[in-house]
């Protein structure tokens, strides 16, 4: 594409806070305000007064200790009086919020929507409490009584992947190493680290074959994006003409049986919903050769092996070859598709409601060519974000593209 039409949905502004283990100097509303202020300023606006609508993204009243938080956040960023939707979709919450904004814009209900998300998943909640809350993400009636950590269902899936395709623990440990290394170059990342496959394999066991360094980080953080029609952006955003516009080219969502034991043997080691969401997103975006057309992907690496599975389900490599691709570094910096240049959930961290939005912030910044230094994916035209709830019960794939 060379240009976008007037009703194309553009990303007019982006912003995020650092993701950290504990923001002792900020509440969740402060963090959402910081991210929103950055996004609004990025669009060249001095306030939110011209924005039609808000979409609030957060997963857990338990972690954030505030019910009806959406209205509080909406008010905090100056949108009181305007319509608001609160979106929750587990790990896919932030991406689903972007999708919700896109639907509002495409329907003509709004011409500009501020999407803001935040979560305090970090150390403001003590370990025992966090464990108890997170255990409720599984099916309370049929799963929570038998396992308390999501390492368990992820481990069951990857165990079958290993048996069926010969995937090894060392292969997915390389993803844990890669993403922590990439996070070293992201100043907003929770914890970049220089570690080895041996460090991963010798860290504390969680649920075999997964170990502590295979697991992603729980963070405090917030992120925001301002989505608007091309027409609105031209009228209201002073920074519109100053840089190549980035569009939300497509968004797709799909669901699967939440409980692993309800899934077919055939699809047991795969994220069926991710595969379906990706297929629909690519179709809508006119992408027929993802590994050669997608330049970067922010992928939901809640566990190291989940990124390897995502390579396959996002059609970046053939089914069963994710382990090999990880071992070859095919999706590392400088690779065919750069996966998780931000460091992903393993290195940048995850503040659930903000995560899918933070992925969009990374992708848009990369597409605009605003990321400098070793993290830059130079010349990137198309980037995708991938998030899921549970072990793939709800998957959202969003596609972003820069005008040529």
């Amino acid at each position, binding site marked *: 594409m060379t240009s976008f039409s007037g009703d194309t949905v553009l990303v007019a502004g982006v912003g995020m806070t650092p993701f950290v283990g504990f923001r002792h*100097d900020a509440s969740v509303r402060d963090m959402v305000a910081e991210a929103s202020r950055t996004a609004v300023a990025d669009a060249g606006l001095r306030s939110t007064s011209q924005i039609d609508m808000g979409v609030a993204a957060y997963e857990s009243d338990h972690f954030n200790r505030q019910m009806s938080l959406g209205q509080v956040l909406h008010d905090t960023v100056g949108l009181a009086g305007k319509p608001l939707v609160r979106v929750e979709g587990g790990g896919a919450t932030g991406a689903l919020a972007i999708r919700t904004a896109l639907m509002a814009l495409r329907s003509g209900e709004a011409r500009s929507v501020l999407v803001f998300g935040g979560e305090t998943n970090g150390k403001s909640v003590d370990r025992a409490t966090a464990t108890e809350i997170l255990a409720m993400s599984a099916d*309370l009636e049929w799963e*929570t009584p038998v396992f308390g950590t999501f390492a368990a269902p992820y481990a069951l899936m990857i*165990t*079958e992947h290993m048996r069926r395709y010969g995937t090894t623990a060392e292969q997915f440990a390389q993803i844990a190493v890669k993403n922590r290394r990439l996070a070293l170059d992201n100043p907003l990342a929770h914890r970049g680290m220089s570690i080895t496959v041996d460090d991963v394999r010798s860290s504390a066991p969680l649920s075999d074959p997964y170990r502590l360094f295979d697991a992603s980080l729980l963070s405090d953080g917030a992120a925001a994006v301002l989505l608007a029609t091309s027409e609105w952006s031209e009228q209201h955003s002073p920074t519109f003409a100053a840089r190549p516009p980035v569009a939300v080219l497509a968004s797709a969502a799909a669901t699967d049986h939440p409980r692993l*034991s309800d899934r077919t043997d055939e699809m047991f080691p795969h994220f069926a919903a991710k595969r379906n969401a990706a297929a629909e997103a690519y179709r809508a975006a006119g992408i027929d050769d993802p590994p050669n057309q997608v330049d970067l992907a922010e992928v939901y690496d809640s566990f190291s092996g989940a990124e390897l599975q995502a390579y396959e389900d996002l059609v970046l490599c053939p089914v069963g070859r994710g382990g090999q691709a990880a071992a070859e570094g095919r999706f590392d910096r400088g690779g065919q598709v750069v996966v998780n240049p931000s460091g992903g959930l393993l290195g940048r961290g995850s503040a659930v409601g903000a995560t899918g939005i933070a992925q969009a912030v990374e992708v848009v910044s990369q597409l605009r060519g605003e990321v400098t230094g070793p993290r830059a994916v130079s010349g990137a035209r198309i980037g995708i974000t991938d998030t899921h709830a549970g072990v793939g019960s709800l998957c959202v794939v969003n596609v972003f593209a820069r005008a040529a």
Partner: protein
Amino acid sequence: MRVTGVDRSTGTGGQPVYLLDMEMSQRYRHAVGSSSPFYRGLEEGVLRATRCPECGASWFPPRRFCPVDMTETAWYDLPGTGTVTAATRVHSPPPFGGIDPPYVLASIRLDGVDGGITHRVTGSETPKKGTVVTVTFIEEAAAHPLLAIAFSVRRGEA
């Protein structure tokens, strides 16, 4: 709810920081609702599922209404055997307690129903895909009624 402490410190930029230690507790009386006959079954030593009289589909975990046609289902007893799809050794206790880690957890396809369960397998060996397991009813009071069962590998099939 109560406030148990206040921490007055200084942020990295020298700004005042004020932290409240708060405690909240939640207590619930949880209705298992339409799954009640399943839980009664556990106390009687039988594993129960539901079947749709309209389309014949069987459901485990049991469902009151068939998701295909919304018809009310009927209860029946399962043989209590199944086959492992995948298994893992878990190194932390489940949230309600009742199992000392490490323990073996498996996704199990149950015989006699188009469905399965993720549950504990007794012993320390992690069974391979295809291993046949049988439900075992545990006598002592469990931390959660669902833990009144576990699955055991049939002798000679480990």
